[in-house]
């Protein structure tokens, strides 16, 4: 079973994304409400996520900064990260792609197809 870590400071987004992935794909979800909490959750050796879905705009440590911090830890640097953003400008997409993340998904997402979007972005066939 896939394990996904969702990092977002907005309670309702975390809740809907988790519900969506659990109900439509049967994935196991862990959530964190900040970049710092997300790094700790990702590093948990008993529940290492197969992928991370992370908001871009968060207070304190934003998504790109959190991603760069994750890259400094060899134990979690290989976990694919998908950024979730409400920004749709091309310049943002290029900036995020340059970071080295596995992909960028856009808010508002469709809860019925979010799992399929993640699978497609990561090349998962199952």
């Amino acid at each position, binding site marked *: 079973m896939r394990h996904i870590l969702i990092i977002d400071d907005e309670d*309702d*987004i975390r809740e809907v994304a988790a519900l969506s992935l659990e*109900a439509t794909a049967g994935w196991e979800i862990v959530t964190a409400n900040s970049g710092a909490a997300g790094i700790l959750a990702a590093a948990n050796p008993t529940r290492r996520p197969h992928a991370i879905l992370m908001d871009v*705009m968060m207070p304190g440590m934003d998504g790109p900064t959190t991603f760069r911090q994750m890259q400094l830890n060899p134990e979690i640097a290989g976990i694919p990260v998908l950024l979730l953003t409400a920004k749709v400008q091309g310049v943002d997409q290029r900036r995020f792609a340059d970071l080295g993340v596995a992909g960028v998904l856009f*808010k*508002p997402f469709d809860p019925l197809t979010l799992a399929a979007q993640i699978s497609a972005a990561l090349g998962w066939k199952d």
Partner: protein
Amino acid sequence: MTEAEDKTAALLAALWLKNRPIVDERMAVLEGAAAAACTGSLAEAQRKEAQSAAHKLAGALGMYGYDEGTRIARKLEMLLDEAAPDATTLAGLIAELRNAVLSKG
């Protein structure tokens, strides 16, 4: 729809009702900014807070199947990016968004 999709849609409808107070809080932030703009007293901090509320609404409303709400909230986010947003336009868009949210229930 598959059974899983049906179940997800039903849970989403319940989550909309549960999270409706969050939407109302963000609408209140926007309406406070509009009131301040009408009296020429919209401070930068309040404008930024309202822009953040619009950004969050833009990201959230569509996931409940409410794309029109996202469209209006995006317009508000862009308008509130200006140092001195037009008060009439601001109030009009916020009223449009409020009516639209009310129509969803």
